[in-house]
């Protein structure tokens, strides 16, 4: 008698679903086996050669300075806290960089398409130069340039308020909390919430009645008025919540007092990352706007919509669907590229981690910072994908 292995009347070696399941299971087993082999190999090698591993160092005192930090830090703090300080530095670079690079990139990208020949050529040259030179080279170039500046009193001074020089770095005016600043900020948040409600109400009114109600103007008015009234209340009670603190050179070396000062290392890192990434973003924006067919703009103009209305209601919404995914990947690139700070000596996550390896197990440290970078990247991706889904959905 013939052996008949069949499923649904088909011999199993010809049944597409069974074949695909078998392939999945076999490849799954192979992957698990490979990973297990790799891990056991690494761990036995590490034991044999006495390479330290483990997380117990996290509670030890780091006892090494971190040159620049957003969070308060002292040498007596633990390794775990030092990771947090360094990760915050990297996060700050990433967020500030992403915001400014996006703004610069959108402007340059839009300008490239403008009818103004001179400006559009300048933008094209900018994009081509900064996209085609390695970022590390650019960072070191900016750093050397800043190092070449004279000290504070002879350095670059703008409006007697912004100082750029080789010893202090970049100093600029910064609000300084005076009387319950946190509570006032809460009032501002409330005013913003009120502004959003106002905008929605005015938009609805505009749609219902057709009378122009300037929803944006109304919303911004509410936010400013709310914050201002709260400010007046603070002043009436005693002191303003914030006072603008302007840096002022002091002492023999003229190190600025007041305002906010960032090092030339951080300045060079931010300038380099922003200018480099903005060049890529400009190309993405230009490509996105060009991907919308010419007929769309013509149809919109022929209906009587103006240039800005056409951009806002017709061209940009369609371009956005093309722009957002590659834009997210540029945000990830900027965040990951911030690790090049190591080369110019800003205390970002990577350079702090590298210093840590002198007194703690390197493998563990680098596993931790890989995890942190991964966390940042996945967060950007998540936010970007949610936004992307939102615009795809409303777009149909």
């Amino acid at each position: 008698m013939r052996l008949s292995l069949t499923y649904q009347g088909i011999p199993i070696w010809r049944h597409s679903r069974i074949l695909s399941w078998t392939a999945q299971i076999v490849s799954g087993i192979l992957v698990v086996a490979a990973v297990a082999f790799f891990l056991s190999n690494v761990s036995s090698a590490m034991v044999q050669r006495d390479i330290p591993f483990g997380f117990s160092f996290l509670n030890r005192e780091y006892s090494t300075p971190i040159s620049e930090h957003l969070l308060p830090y002292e040498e007596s703090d633990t390794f775990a806290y030092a990771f947090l300080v360094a990760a915050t530095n990297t996060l700050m670079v990433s967020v500030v960089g992403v915001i400014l690079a996006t703004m610069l990139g959108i402007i340059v990208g839009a300008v490239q398409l403008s009818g103004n020949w001179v400006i559009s050529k300048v933008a094209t040259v900018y994009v081509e130069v900064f996209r085609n030179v390695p970022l590390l080279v650019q960072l070191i170039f900016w750093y050397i340039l800043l190092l070449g500046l004279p000290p504070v009193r002879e350095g670059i001074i703008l409006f007697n308020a912004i100082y750029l020089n080789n010893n202090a770095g970049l100093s600029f005016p910064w609000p300084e909390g005076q009387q319950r600043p946190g509570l006032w900020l809460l009032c501002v948040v409330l005013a913003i919430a009120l502004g959003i409600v106002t905008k929605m109400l005015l938009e609805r009114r505009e749609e219902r009645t057709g009378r122009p109600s300037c929803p944006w103007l109304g919303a911004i008015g509410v936010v400013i008025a709310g914050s201002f009234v709260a400010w007046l209340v603070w002043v009436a009670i005693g002191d303003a919540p914030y006072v603008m603190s302007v840096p002022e050179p002091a002492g023999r070396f003229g190190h600025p007092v007041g305002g906010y000062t960032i090092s030339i290392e951080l300045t060079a890192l931010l300038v380099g990352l922003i200018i480099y990434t903005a060049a890529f973003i400009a190309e993405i924006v230009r490509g996105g706007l060009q991907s919308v067919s010419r007929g769309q703009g013509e149809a919109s103009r022929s209906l009587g919509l103006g240039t800005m209305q056409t951009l806002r209601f017709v061209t940009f919404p369609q371009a956005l669907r093309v722009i957002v995914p590659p834009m997210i990947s540029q945000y990830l690139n900027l965040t990951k590229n911030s690790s090049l700070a190591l080369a110019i000596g800003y205390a970002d996550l990577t350079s702090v981690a590298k210093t840590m390896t002198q007194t703690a197990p390197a493998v563990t440290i680098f596993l931790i910072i890989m995890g942190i970078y991964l966390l940042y990247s996945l967060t950007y991706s998540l936010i970007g994908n949610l936004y992307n889904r939102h615009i795809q959905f409303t777009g149909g």
Partner: protein
Amino acid sequence: MATETAVAADPASEQDNIIVARDVHKWFGNFHALRGVTTTVGRGEVVVVIGPSGSGKSTFIRTINRLEQHQRGDIIVDGVEMTEDVRNIDAIRSEVGMVFQSFNLFPHLTVMRNITLAPTKVRKTPMDEADASAMQLLERVGIPEQAEKYPGELSGGQQQRVAIARALAMNPKIMLFDEPTSALDPEMIKEVLEVMKELAASHQMTIVAITHELGFAREVADRIVMFDEGQIVEDLPPDEFFNNPRHERVRRFLSQIL
């Protein structure tokens, strides 16, 4: 080669002429696309424009709402001269509706929003009013049931009918049709032509249509204008145009497309 220009504008009747073109020239780089076009279109007139491809007919009707700029001569639309003045251009564009060969519906908006976008943003019509008149227009072009769909979900004929409704939503005085049926499958041409015939028969607006649907031209046109090499070579009522054209060029063209 025929070089004489056709019917010159009669100054006395200029008030009745909603479109006046005098000696209009247009170059694309070195290519002389329009070589002195002079013609007039009266209020409520239906003019069909024909001519071989590259003859400048499409360029000409695009200069009427200034999607193309002419470089010499005058174009006066509803008493407003088309110049570099941005305000004039925007004013004219909302009075001149245009239907394109490739529909150019906005793919990210529903049929309804395609139609109401310009009325609500340019004319500041209240949304519910705009919705109601959009619905009436969709009924007029025969597809009210498609209101909430996106353009990508419609057939070519339906899309072109939405495009006509979108242009009509601005209550234009003039409708320009730039080969509205050339991109359609044969069975859909009829449904679009029916809508256009209904528009022409209503005599509410001036129509300038580029089309090679000669049956349509014979039935509804007051005049047929033929372009060749950037000039108007013939301008006659349909009967004469088909039966007794003055130029050999017209006879040759008709024999090619019939």
